[in-house]
Protein backbone atom coordinates (compact mmCIF):
# COMPACT_ATOMS: atom_id res chain seq x y z
CA UNK A 1 0.00 0.00 0.00
CA UNK A 2 1.03 3.61 -0.49
CA UNK A 3 -0.31 7.09 0.16
CA UNK A 4 -0.68 9.71 -2.56
CA UNK A 5 -1.46 13.42 -2.75
CA UNK A 6 -4.17 14.52 -5.18
CA UNK A 7 -5.34 17.96 -6.22
CA UNK A 8 -8.47 18.48 -8.30
CA UNK A 9 -10.81 21.21 -9.45
CA UNK A 10 -14.54 20.51 -9.29
CA UNK A 11 -17.86 22.23 -9.84
CA UNK A 12 -19.35 23.97 -6.84
CA UNK A 13 -22.69 22.50 -5.68
CA UNK A 14 -25.62 24.27 -4.05
CA UNK A 15 -25.57 22.45 -0.69
CA UNK A 16 -22.76 21.25 1.61
CA UNK A 17 -24.11 17.70 1.38
CA UNK A 18 -23.91 17.66 -2.43
CA UNK A 19 -20.38 19.06 -2.28
CA UNK A 20 -19.34 16.27 0.07
CA UNK A 21 -20.99 13.56 -2.03
CA UNK A 22 -19.35 14.82 -5.21
CA UNK A 23 -15.90 14.94 -3.59
CA UNK A 24 -16.16 11.46 -2.13
CA UNK A 25 -17.37 10.06 -5.41
CA UNK A 26 -14.43 11.70 -7.21
CA UNK A 27 -11.88 10.43 -4.69
CA UNK A 28 -12.98 6.79 -5.00
CA UNK A 29 -11.60 6.92 -8.56
CA UNK A 30 -8.12 7.48 -7.10
CA UNK A 31 -8.14 5.17 -4.08
CA UNK A 32 -9.46 5.26 -0.54
CA UNK A 33 -9.70 8.77 0.91
CA UNK A 34 -7.61 9.28 4.03
CA UNK A 35 -7.79 13.03 4.41
CA UNK A 36 -9.22 15.78 2.23
CA UNK A 37 -10.16 19.43 2.30
CA UNK A 38 -11.47 22.07 -0.03
CA UNK A 39 -8.71 24.66 -0.08
CA UNK A 40 -10.22 27.35 -2.25
CA UNK A 41 -13.59 28.36 -3.73
CA UNK A 42 -13.85 30.58 -6.79
CA UNK A 43 -17.36 31.98 -6.69
CA UNK A 44 -16.94 33.68 -10.06
CA UNK A 45 -16.19 30.45 -11.94
CA UNK A 46 -18.21 28.31 -9.49
CA UNK A 47 -15.24 25.99 -9.06
CA UNK A 48 -13.67 24.55 -5.92
CA UNK A 49 -10.14 23.26 -5.42
CA UNK A 50 -9.71 20.01 -3.53
CA UNK A 51 -6.57 18.54 -1.97
CA UNK A 52 -6.55 14.97 -0.69
CA UNK A 53 -4.41 12.11 0.51
CA UNK A 54 -5.59 8.72 -0.73
CA UNK A 55 -4.47 5.16 -0.03
CA UNK A 56 -3.71 2.84 -2.91
CA UNK A 57 -3.40 -0.87 -2.26
CA UNK A 58 -0.70 -2.54 -4.33
CA UNK A 59 -1.97 -5.31 -6.57
Amino acid at each position, binding site marked *: *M*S*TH*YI*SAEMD*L*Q*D*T*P*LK*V*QELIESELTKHG*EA*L*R*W*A*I*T*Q*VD*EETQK*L*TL*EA*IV*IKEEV
Partner: protein
Amino acid sequence: MPKDSTALLLVPTGIGAAIGGYAGDAIPVAKMISQVVGTLITHPNVLNGAGLYWPMDNTLYVEGYALDQFAKGNWHLQRVNSNRVGLLLDKGIEPDLLLRHLQVAEASRATLGLELSDYLVTDEPLEITLQTSASGASWGNITNPSSLLRGADKLINLAQAQAIAVVTRFPEEPPESIVLQNYRQGFGVDPLSGAEAVISHLIVQRFGIPAAHAPALNPLPLSQDISPKAAAEEIGYSFLPSVLVGLSRAPRYINKYQSNSISSADVDYVITPASACGGSALLSLASKGATIIAVEENHTQMRVFPESLGIKAIRVKSYLEAVGVIVSKNCGISLESLGPNISRLERL
Protein backbone atom coordinates in the same frame (compact mmCIF):
# COMPACT_ATOMS: atom_id res chain seq x y z
CA MET B 1 -26.84 27.97 33.42
CA PRO B 2 -27.60 24.93 31.18
CA LYS B 3 -24.36 23.20 30.22
CA ASP B 4 -25.56 19.93 28.74
CA SER B 5 -24.73 20.88 25.18
CA THR B 6 -22.00 19.31 23.03
CA ALA B 7 -19.47 21.31 21.02
CA LEU B 8 -16.85 20.31 18.49
CA LEU B 9 -13.77 22.53 18.30
CA LEU B 10 -11.96 22.20 14.97
CA VAL B 11 -8.56 23.66 14.16
CA PRO B 12 -7.43 21.73 11.07
CA THR B 13 -3.79 20.76 11.25
CA GLY B 14 -1.03 21.88 8.89
CA ILE B 15 -2.84 24.92 7.49
CA GLY B 16 -1.11 27.67 9.45
CA ALA B 17 -3.93 28.47 11.86
CA ALA B 18 -2.97 31.63 13.76
CA ILE B 19 -4.48 30.08 16.91
CA GLY B 20 -3.81 26.35 17.25
CA GLY B 21 -1.35 26.06 14.39
CA TYR B 22 1.70 25.84 16.66
CA ALA B 23 2.49 23.95 19.87
CA GLY B 24 -0.69 23.43 21.88
CA ASP B 25 -1.59 27.09 21.49
CA ALA B 26 -5.32 26.35 21.22
CA ILE B 27 -5.40 24.65 24.63
CA PRO B 28 -6.58 27.91 26.32
CA VAL B 29 -9.44 28.08 23.79
CA ALA B 30 -10.40 24.47 24.54
CA LYS B 31 -10.22 25.13 28.30
CA MET B 32 -12.53 28.13 27.93
CA ILE B 33 -15.10 26.40 25.72
CA SER B 34 -15.11 23.32 27.96
CA GLN B 35 -16.44 25.54 30.76
CA VAL B 36 -19.67 26.41 28.93
CA VAL B 37 -20.67 23.06 27.43
CA GLY B 38 -21.37 19.63 28.83
CA THR B 39 -19.03 17.89 26.39
CA LEU B 40 -16.27 19.28 24.22
CA ILE B 41 -14.92 17.15 21.40
CA THR B 42 -11.63 18.16 19.83
CA HIS B 43 -8.56 16.63 18.27
CA PRO B 44 -4.93 15.97 19.25
CA ASN B 45 -3.69 18.97 17.28
CA VAL B 46 -5.63 21.20 19.69
CA LEU B 47 -4.77 19.44 22.93
CA ASN B 48 -1.12 18.41 22.43
CA GLY B 49 1.42 20.88 23.76
CA ALA B 50 4.47 18.57 23.55
CA GLY B 51 5.38 18.24 27.26
CA LEU B 52 2.43 20.44 28.29
CA TYR B 53 -1.21 19.41 28.45
CA TRP B 54 -4.35 20.09 30.43
CA PRO B 55 -6.63 17.10 30.97
CA MET B 56 -10.29 18.08 31.18
CA ASP B 57 -12.92 15.61 32.33
CA ASN B 58 -15.54 16.74 29.82
CA THR B 59 -13.21 17.00 26.82
CA LEU B 60 -12.83 14.13 24.37
CA TYR B 61 -9.54 13.63 22.48
CA VAL B 62 -10.58 12.33 19.05
CA GLU B 63 -8.19 11.80 16.15
CA GLY B 64 -9.03 13.57 12.88
CA TYR B 65 -9.96 10.54 10.76
CA ALA B 66 -12.23 9.36 13.58
CA LEU B 67 -13.77 12.83 13.76
CA ASP B 68 -14.67 12.63 10.08
CA GLN B 69 -16.29 9.21 10.58
CA PHE B 70 -18.06 10.44 13.73
CA ALA B 71 -19.40 13.51 11.93
CA LYS B 72 -20.75 11.35 9.11
CA GLY B 73 -22.58 9.16 11.62
CA ASN B 74 -20.50 6.06 10.84
CA TRP B 75 -18.77 5.96 14.24
CA HIS B 76 -19.91 6.93 17.74
CA LEU B 77 -17.81 7.86 20.75
CA GLN B 78 -17.74 5.77 23.91
CA ARG B 79 -16.25 7.39 27.01
CA VAL B 80 -13.72 5.28 28.93
CA ASN B 81 -12.03 5.53 32.30
CA SER B 82 -8.69 4.64 30.77
CA ASN B 83 -6.96 3.04 27.80
CA ARG B 84 -3.95 0.75 27.75
CA VAL B 85 -1.66 2.68 25.42
CA GLY B 86 0.75 0.88 23.10
CA LEU B 87 3.91 2.76 22.11
CA LEU B 88 5.04 2.21 18.53
CA LEU B 89 8.54 3.48 17.72
CA ASP B 90 10.05 3.92 14.26
CA LYS B 91 13.11 1.75 13.59
CA GLY B 92 14.64 4.86 11.99
CA ILE B 93 15.02 6.58 15.40
CA GLU B 94 18.64 6.66 16.63
CA PRO B 95 19.36 4.76 19.90
CA ASP B 96 19.79 7.85 22.11
CA LEU B 97 16.63 9.49 20.81
CA LEU B 98 14.74 6.22 21.17
CA LEU B 99 15.89 5.97 24.79
CA ARG B 100 14.58 9.49 25.48
CA HIS B 101 11.15 8.40 24.27
CA LEU B 102 11.20 5.23 26.33
CA GLN B 103 12.02 7.39 29.35
CA VAL B 104 8.95 9.53 28.62
CA ALA B 105 6.85 6.36 28.54
CA GLU B 106 8.33 5.11 31.83
CA ALA B 107 7.89 8.54 33.44
CA SER B 108 4.24 8.68 32.40
CA ARG B 109 3.69 5.36 34.18
CA ALA B 110 5.54 6.39 37.33
CA THR B 111 4.35 9.99 37.67
CA LEU B 112 0.90 9.96 36.08
CA GLY B 113 -0.04 6.34 36.62
CA LEU B 114 -0.79 5.72 32.95
CA GLU B 115 -1.21 2.14 31.76
CA LEU B 116 1.11 1.27 28.87
CA SER B 117 1.65 -2.03 27.14
CA ASP B 118 5.16 -3.23 26.26
CA TYR B 119 6.50 -1.14 23.37
CA LEU B 120 7.31 -2.16 19.82
CA VAL B 121 9.88 -0.98 17.28
CA THR B 122 8.79 -1.22 13.63
CA ASP B 123 10.46 -3.91 11.49
CA GLU B 124 11.67 -1.29 8.97
CA PRO B 125 12.51 2.42 9.16
CA LEU B 126 9.32 4.28 8.20
CA GLU B 127 11.16 7.06 6.29
CA ILE B 128 8.91 10.09 6.44
CA THR B 129 9.10 12.79 3.76
CA LEU B 130 7.60 16.25 4.23
CA GLN B 131 5.79 18.17 1.48
CA THR B 132 3.86 21.37 0.96
CA SER B 133 0.74 21.39 -1.20
CA ALA B 134 -0.27 24.03 -3.74
CA SER B 135 -2.49 25.72 -1.12
CA GLY B 136 0.43 26.02 1.31
CA ALA B 137 -0.78 23.23 3.60
CA SER B 138 1.77 20.74 4.88
CA TRP B 139 1.49 17.03 4.23
CA GLY B 140 3.86 14.11 3.94
CA ASN B 141 4.44 10.58 2.88
CA ILE B 142 5.54 7.36 4.57
CA THR B 143 7.85 5.21 2.52
CA ASN B 144 6.99 2.06 4.50
CA PRO B 145 3.35 2.36 5.62
CA SER B 146 2.98 -1.43 5.77
CA SER B 147 5.63 -1.59 8.49
CA LEU B 148 3.70 1.03 10.49
CA LEU B 149 0.52 -1.05 10.23
CA ARG B 150 2.27 -4.34 11.06
CA GLY B 151 3.64 -2.74 14.23
CA ALA B 152 0.24 -1.38 15.26
CA ASP B 153 -1.33 -4.77 14.57
CA LYS B 154 1.13 -6.50 16.91
CA LEU B 155 0.60 -3.98 19.68
CA ILE B 156 -3.17 -4.46 19.45
CA ASN B 157 -3.22 -8.23 19.09
CA LEU B 158 -0.17 -9.34 21.11
CA ALA B 159 0.04 -6.61 23.75
CA GLN B 160 -3.71 -5.78 23.98
CA ALA B 161 -3.13 -2.09 23.30
CA GLN B 162 -6.38 -0.10 23.19
CA ALA B 163 -4.78 3.04 21.73
CA ILE B 164 -1.58 3.61 19.76
CA ALA B 165 0.99 6.34 20.40
CA VAL B 166 3.32 6.40 17.43
CA VAL B 167 6.69 8.13 17.30
CA THR B 168 8.41 8.40 13.92
CA ARG B 169 11.77 9.87 12.95
CA PHE B 170 11.08 13.09 11.08
CA PRO B 171 13.64 14.69 8.77
CA GLU B 172 15.59 17.50 10.41
CA GLU B 173 15.12 20.99 8.99
CA PRO B 174 18.38 22.97 9.19
CA PRO B 175 18.06 25.71 11.86
CA GLU B 176 18.55 28.35 9.14
CA SER B 177 15.52 27.06 7.17
CA ILE B 178 13.04 29.89 6.59
CA VAL B 179 10.05 27.60 7.23
CA LEU B 180 11.51 26.48 10.57
CA GLN B 181 12.53 29.99 11.58
CA ASN B 182 9.03 31.27 10.80
CA TYR B 183 7.42 28.47 12.79
CA ARG B 184 9.66 29.08 15.83
CA GLN B 185 8.74 32.77 15.65
CA GLY B 186 5.00 32.03 15.46
CA PHE B 187 4.39 32.53 11.73
CA GLY B 188 3.54 30.30 8.80
CA VAL B 189 2.62 26.65 8.58
CA ASP B 190 3.83 23.83 10.85
CA PRO B 191 5.86 21.81 8.31
CA LEU B 192 5.43 18.56 10.30
CA SER B 193 1.79 18.40 11.23
CA GLY B 194 0.32 17.43 7.84
CA ALA B 195 2.53 14.32 7.74
CA GLU B 196 1.66 13.56 11.36
CA ALA B 197 -2.02 13.52 10.41
CA VAL B 198 -1.36 11.05 7.59
CA ILE B 199 0.40 8.67 10.03
CA SER B 200 -2.31 8.69 12.71
CA HIS B 201 -5.11 8.58 10.10
CA LEU B 202 -3.61 5.39 8.63
CA ILE B 203 -3.72 3.60 11.98
CA VAL B 204 -7.20 4.82 12.87
CA GLN B 205 -8.55 4.00 9.41
CA ARG B 206 -7.14 0.45 9.53
CA PHE B 207 -7.81 -0.51 13.15
CA GLY B 208 -10.61 1.80 14.35
CA ILE B 209 -8.90 2.64 17.64
CA PRO B 210 -7.51 5.94 18.98
CA ALA B 211 -4.05 6.90 17.76
CA ALA B 212 -1.87 9.99 17.85
CA HIS B 213 1.61 10.89 16.71
CA ALA B 214 4.69 12.59 18.10
CA PRO B 215 7.68 13.33 15.85
CA ALA B 216 11.17 12.31 17.00
CA LEU B 217 13.63 15.13 16.42
CA ASN B 218 16.90 16.24 17.93
CA PRO B 219 16.69 19.40 20.08
CA LEU B 220 17.23 22.61 18.11
CA PRO B 221 19.98 25.08 19.01
CA LEU B 222 18.94 27.32 21.89
CA SER B 223 17.42 30.57 20.63
CA GLN B 224 16.27 33.75 22.36
CA ASP B 225 13.83 34.46 19.54
CA ILE B 226 11.12 31.85 20.13
CA SER B 227 7.44 32.76 20.03
CA PRO B 228 5.44 31.77 23.13
CA LYS B 229 3.12 29.93 20.69
CA ALA B 230 5.94 27.60 19.62
CA ALA B 231 7.84 27.46 22.91
CA ALA B 232 6.26 24.22 24.13
CA GLU B 233 8.31 22.34 21.54
CA GLU B 234 11.59 23.87 22.74
CA ILE B 235 11.53 22.66 26.33
CA GLY B 236 12.24 18.95 26.17
CA TYR B 237 13.57 16.00 24.25
CA SER B 238 10.18 14.67 23.20
CA PHE B 239 6.67 15.74 22.18
CA LEU B 240 5.27 12.46 23.50
CA PRO B 241 3.95 13.33 27.00
CA SER B 242 0.78 15.10 25.84
CA VAL B 243 0.08 12.31 23.32
CA LEU B 244 0.22 9.64 26.05
CA VAL B 245 -2.02 11.67 28.34
CA GLY B 246 -4.55 12.36 25.58
CA LEU B 247 -4.71 8.74 24.45
CA SER B 248 -4.95 7.40 27.99
CA ARG B 249 -8.52 8.75 28.19
CA ALA B 250 -9.48 9.03 24.53
CA PRO B 251 -12.98 7.72 23.82
CA ARG B 252 -13.30 4.47 21.89
CA TYR B 253 -14.90 4.38 18.46
CA ILE B 254 -17.94 2.14 18.09
CA ASN B 255 -20.02 1.35 15.02
CA LYS B 256 -23.31 0.73 16.78
CA TYR B 257 -24.95 3.48 18.79
CA GLN B 258 -25.40 2.73 22.49
CA SER B 259 -27.46 4.72 24.96
CA ASN B 260 -24.40 6.21 26.70
CA SER B 261 -22.37 6.89 23.57
CA ILE B 262 -22.13 10.21 21.75
CA SER B 263 -23.22 10.50 18.14
CA SER B 264 -23.03 13.25 15.55
CA ALA B 265 -26.69 14.07 16.21
CA ASP B 266 -25.64 15.18 19.72
CA VAL B 267 -23.36 17.94 18.41
CA ASP B 268 -24.94 21.36 19.01
CA TYR B 269 -22.02 23.62 18.05
CA VAL B 270 -19.05 23.43 15.72
CA ILE B 271 -16.41 26.12 16.21
CA THR B 272 -14.05 26.52 13.25
CA PRO B 273 -11.67 29.07 11.75
CA ALA B 274 -13.82 31.08 9.30
CA SER B 275 -11.44 30.52 6.39
CA ALA B 276 -11.22 26.72 6.84
CA CYS B 277 -14.77 25.49 6.29
CA GLY B 278 -13.92 22.94 3.59
CA GLY B 279 -13.25 19.84 5.68
CA SER B 280 -15.24 16.63 5.78
CA ALA B 281 -16.35 16.84 9.43
CA LEU B 282 -17.66 20.37 9.06
CA LEU B 283 -19.56 19.65 5.85
CA SER B 284 -21.17 16.59 7.49
CA LEU B 285 -22.27 18.48 10.59
CA ALA B 286 -23.44 21.52 8.64
CA SER B 287 -25.89 19.19 6.91
CA LYS B 288 -27.17 17.88 10.24
CA GLY B 289 -28.33 21.10 11.86
CA ALA B 290 -25.43 21.90 14.21
CA THR B 291 -24.82 25.61 14.80
CA ILE B 292 -21.61 26.52 12.98
CA ILE B 293 -19.58 29.29 14.60
CA ALA B 294 -16.90 30.71 12.29
CA VAL B 295 -14.06 32.56 14.02
CA GLU B 296 -12.58 35.27 11.80
CA GLU B 297 -9.39 36.14 13.66
CA ASN B 298 -8.09 32.58 13.47
CA HIS B 299 -6.56 33.13 10.02
CA THR B 300 -5.34 30.13 8.00
CA GLN B 301 -3.80 29.45 4.59
CA MET B 302 -7.21 28.26 3.33
CA ARG B 303 -9.72 30.46 1.51
CA VAL B 304 -12.94 28.56 2.11
CA PHE B 305 -15.48 30.66 3.94
CA PRO B 306 -18.82 29.16 5.04
CA GLU B 307 -21.03 31.20 2.73
CA SER B 308 -19.15 30.05 -0.38
CA LEU B 309 -20.24 26.46 0.28
CA GLY B 310 -23.80 27.28 1.33
CA ILE B 311 -23.02 26.68 5.01
CA LYS B 312 -25.16 28.73 7.39
CA ALA B 313 -22.75 30.00 10.01
CA ILE B 314 -22.63 32.62 12.72
CA ARG B 315 -19.55 34.72 12.07
CA VAL B 316 -17.69 36.02 15.13
CA LYS B 317 -14.41 37.88 15.45
CA SER B 318 -12.86 35.89 18.29
CA TYR B 319 -13.14 32.76 20.42
CA LEU B 320 -14.27 35.03 23.27
CA GLU B 321 -17.25 36.00 21.13
CA ALA B 322 -17.82 32.36 20.13
CA VAL B 323 -18.22 31.47 23.80
CA GLY B 324 -20.77 34.28 24.10
CA VAL B 325 -22.78 32.74 21.27
CA ILE B 326 -22.75 29.33 22.98
CA VAL B 327 -23.75 30.76 26.37
CA SER B 328 -26.54 32.85 24.81
CA LYS B 329 -27.98 29.95 22.85
CA ASN B 330 -27.68 27.58 25.83
CA CYS B 331 -29.65 30.11 27.88
CA GLY B 332 -32.25 30.74 25.17
CA ILE B 333 -31.26 34.38 24.62
CA SER B 334 -31.59 35.46 21.00
CA LEU B 335 -28.36 36.87 19.61
CA GLU B 336 -30.23 39.78 18.03
CA SER B 337 -31.50 40.89 21.44
CA LEU B 338 -27.92 41.52 22.55
CA GLY B 339 -27.13 44.03 19.79
CA PRO B 340 -27.76 47.78 19.69
CA ASN B 341 -30.59 47.50 17.15
CA ILE B 342 -33.49 45.05 17.00
CA SER B 343 -35.63 44.85 13.89
CA ARG B 344 -39.42 45.02 14.27
CA LEU B 345 -41.55 41.93 13.78
CA GLU B 346 -43.33 41.77 10.43
CA ARG B 347 -46.88 40.58 9.91
CA LEU B 348 -46.83 37.29 7.93
